[in-house]
């Protein structure tokens, strides 16, 4: 091998090797991340991926998933051309068709449903990734439908609504100035890799870390000064109990409470119902551990809290559990204070960047009205607080046609496995829909039910607008041509707007025109952003967020204060039984009858994060899949010993709603009585076990992380 051949084999970039480094971003996970990537490109193909050192967000770092980006992009299950179904829905038999033909069929079918029923009979639904959503939501509204929905029906929106009705906005931890970090459900190692460094720095300067989790995680081992391994689903009780200790011991910031909060008397009375012995009993924690954690958080300030996007709100008591944790921040005077939790509104697509865009106007200024959204009757707080339909009511409305029929679904990246009792949803879609179109990067279970399937490209094959912390904005460029006949989601939408001649000049002009409209006023245009391969500092950006603005100008709530007792909930018709206070209920209260307790003694928690997976979208990536080749549930050895379960053995995991076959992994990291199961596997979809009505009445979110189940061994074969 010559020296040059060796350099090419080692993928050293340079003119001699013909390997060029081109910049893009990784969009495998949540848009609140999306790290910058260096794609090493040779002869039009990516040969290697690294994190971009110069990128202001990730500074060269990538997580496990991002490091496998090349393997993800070149997966064998990429959809290659537009497809038309030729077999039964769900059978997976398709024929390739041209883009023009696909667009013609889609336009005709959607317009037919619109004419025969109403525009609202077309539900527009977005799964991951979320980047194209402003264009998609506007498309739905311009088409005339009120029904735009997304995976936000089960992801982070419940937390956002909880924040809004309580404090007027969310507030992130100000790690750089905190003395104590209360990492409630925090495991950055698995789900937010860039956040770990902030905690390490806090510790290095003598700060203290409390980790509260149901699982003994790397954060518990590497970061925690105090680790509270809590019984799953009992976080709300712990938060109220900690509040009682804080009030009783004089650790509360009563000046702050007096000046900036609403409903303290009622909140104090609620907390009074959670004495230490009772909380210890509910949470499975030692009284002294709860006491020390509460004392550390309240007296070693300033102290900030990590609020997880899903860990708490994926319980049927989760909305109020999150609010109960949030209230600790105001009780101790840490909300909107340096080193506490500081409001920092999103600039674009969940990312705070210190400047305003017209994203929300773009999404909603063509809202047609004229009909209630799906789920509005059943989840009135959701409907009042979030401008999408609540998809957890889609199945019921499909089945009953009440209050009006849904006859078509236009989806991008729809994942039926996200829905409890997935099989029922797919069955209803098969039977009830006149037309279903799905767009995806990969052929999925859901896409197999579609009448038309469109191939989308990945982030490295397209350009997209993205804001970043620090006051940055970028418009990426494709590093390779779209594979096969795939297209960018936004180009598909804008093409269709032209084919259907929708009444919207912006959509018909295309994505860049839309992006320019959204960022107008920030001081930069798309064509200026495109000149840089890195994110550009936005002239209008003010960064970092200055603490105290909310205290000075008032909270964006009805009373202008932090509301322990939320007016927005009190305004909901009392017949729904929603409590304005963050009261605690059992997370299995709909399954606690003696027979169900006896038949399904285990607490099933699905979706606890592992570093190689994100929902279902990474499971079929060979390098990632090799880390855990089989769908596997985690069981405490004590339970395993009692039931005769062996490491690596085959078991059936079942609930009253369904069952799956998986392997067993024994682990001391969870308590006896708890079973963990990662979600999103096609061959072992654990959401089959979650009851369709096992939902939090405040948000409509399913109790993914709290469900009764049982386990038994099965024989090979």
């Amino acid at each position, binding site marked *: 091998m010559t020296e040059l051949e*060796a*350099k090419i*084999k*080692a*993928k*050293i970039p340079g003119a001699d090797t013909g390997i060029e480094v081109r910049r893009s971003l990784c969009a495998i996970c949540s848009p609140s991340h999306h790290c910058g990537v260096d794609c090493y490109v040779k002869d039009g193909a990516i040969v*290697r*991926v*690294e*994190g971009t050192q110069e990128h202001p967000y990730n500074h*060269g*770092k*990538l*997580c*496990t998933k*991002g*490091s*496998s980006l*090349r*393997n993800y992009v070149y997966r064998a299950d990429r959809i290659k051309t537009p497809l038309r179904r030729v077999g039964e829905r769900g059978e997976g038999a398709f024929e390739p068709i041209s883009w023009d033909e696909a667009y013609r069929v889609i336009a005709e079918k959607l317009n037919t449903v619109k004419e025969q029923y109403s525009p609202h009979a077309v539900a527009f639904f977005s799964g991951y990734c979320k980047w194209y959503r402003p264009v998609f939501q506007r498309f739905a509204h311009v088409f005339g439908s009120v029904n735009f929905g997304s995976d936000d029906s089960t992801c982070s929106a419940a937390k956002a609504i909880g924040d809004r009705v309580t404090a007027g906005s969310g507030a992130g931890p100000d790690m750089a100035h905190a003395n104590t970090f209360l990492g409630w459900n925090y495991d950055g*190692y*698995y789900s937010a*890799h*860039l956040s*770990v*460094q902030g905690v*390490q720095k806090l510790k290095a300067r003598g700060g203290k870390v409390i980790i509260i989790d149901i699982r*003994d995680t*790397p954060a518990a*081992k*590497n970061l925690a000064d105090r680790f509270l391994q809590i019984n799953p689903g009992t976080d709300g009780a712990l938060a109220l109990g900690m509040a009682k200790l804080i009030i009783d011991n004089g650790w509360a910031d009563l000046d702050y409470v007096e000046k900036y909060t609403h409903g303290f008397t009622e909140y104090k009375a609620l907390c009074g119902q959670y004495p230490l012995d009772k909380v210890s009993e509910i949470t499975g924690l030692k009284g002294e551990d709860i006491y020390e954690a509460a004392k550390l958080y309240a007296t070693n300030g300033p102290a900030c809290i990590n609020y997880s996007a899903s860990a708490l709100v994926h319980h049927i008591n989760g909305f109020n559990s999150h609010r109960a944790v949030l209230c600790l921040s105001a009780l101790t005077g840490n909300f909107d204070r340096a080193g506490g939790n500081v409001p920092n509104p999103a600039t674009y697509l969940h990312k705070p960047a210190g400047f305003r865009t017209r994203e929300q106007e773009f999404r909603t200024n063509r809202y047609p009205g004229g009909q209630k959204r799906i789920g509005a009757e059943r989840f009135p707080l959701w409907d009042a607080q979030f401008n999408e339909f609540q998809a957890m009511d889609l199945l019921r409305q499909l089945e009953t046609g009440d209050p009006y029929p849904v006859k078509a679904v236009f989806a991008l990246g729809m994942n039926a496995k996200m829905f409890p009792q997935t099989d029922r949803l797919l069955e209803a879609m098969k039977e009830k829909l006149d037309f279903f179109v799905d767009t995806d990067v990969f052929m999925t279970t859901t896409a197999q039910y579609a009448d038309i399937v469109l191939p989308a490209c990945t982030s490295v094959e397209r350009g997209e607008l993205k804001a970043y912390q620090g006051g940055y904005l970028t418009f990426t460029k494709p590093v390779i041509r779209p594979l096969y006949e795939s297209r960018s989601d936004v180009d598909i939408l804008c093409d269709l707007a032209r084919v259907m001649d929708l009444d919207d000049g912006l959509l018909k002009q295309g994505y860049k025109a839309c992006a320019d409209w959204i960022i107008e006023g920030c001081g930069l245009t798309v064509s200026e952003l495109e000149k840089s391969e890195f994110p550009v500092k936005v002239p209008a950006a003010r960064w970092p967020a200055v603490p105290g603005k909310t205290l000075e100008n008032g909270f964006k709530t009805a009373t202008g204060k932090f509301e322990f007792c939320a007016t927005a909930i009190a305004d909901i018709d009392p017949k729904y039984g929603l409590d304005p206070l963050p009261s605690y209920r059992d997370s299995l209260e709909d399954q606690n009858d003696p027979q169900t307790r006896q038949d399904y003694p285990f607490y099933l928690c699905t979706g606890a994060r592992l*570093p*190689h997976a994100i929902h279902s979208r990474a499971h079929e990536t*060979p*390098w*990632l899949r*090799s*880390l855990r080749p089989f769908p596997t549930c985690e069981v405490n050895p004590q339970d395993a010993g009692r039931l005769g379960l062996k490491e690596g053995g085959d078991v059936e995991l079942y609930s009253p709603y369904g069952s799956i076959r998986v392997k067993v992994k024994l*682990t*001391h*990291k969870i308590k006896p009585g708890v079973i963990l199961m990662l979600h999103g596997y096609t061959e072992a979809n654990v959401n089959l076990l979650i009851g369709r009505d096992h939902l939090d009445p405040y948000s409509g979110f399913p109790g993914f992380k709290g469900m009764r189940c049982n386990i038994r061994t099965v024989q090979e074969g």
Partner: protein
Amino acid sequence: MKHVFVFDPDKCCACSACMMGCMDQNDTDLSGGGRCYRQTFDSEIERDGGVYCAYLSAACMHCADAPCIDACPVGCLSKDPETGFTVYDNTNCIGCKSCALACPFGAPRYRRDGGKMVKCDGCNIRVKNGLQPACVRACSFGALTCMTEEDYAADGSGKACSALIDALTLRRK
């Protein structure tokens, strides 16, 4: 300049990003029987009535006195004089697996087609071109680093991979 892999078990979480970086660099074809040169371990060790969690990442340790080099009957393995990494040229490999028997860490792997040995070479050419080994580049937590012998001596961490086993600190649960 000789280089040393350094591993800090207090920063590792076995997330396996290092493995992804390694497979990306080495075009590991799992369906063709290939295996990643690096391996992570998420281990629970029961001892004295308690349970210890250990998160590890390991590959070829690039031992100073590498037993695989002497074990190879056809001289495939050698030390790169510049980087100090244990490198190989498997042109003459006969697939006898003597190197694997000699290696205490199971670093050598064998191709399914032809049975020739392959292993971690420390990303020798990357390092010679001023780049980090792929696994180090992929580590977000500072658990896995690669430094020159001089920097390692000055650093004083004592956490060179070859000293990994001794340096393992296990926290009681």
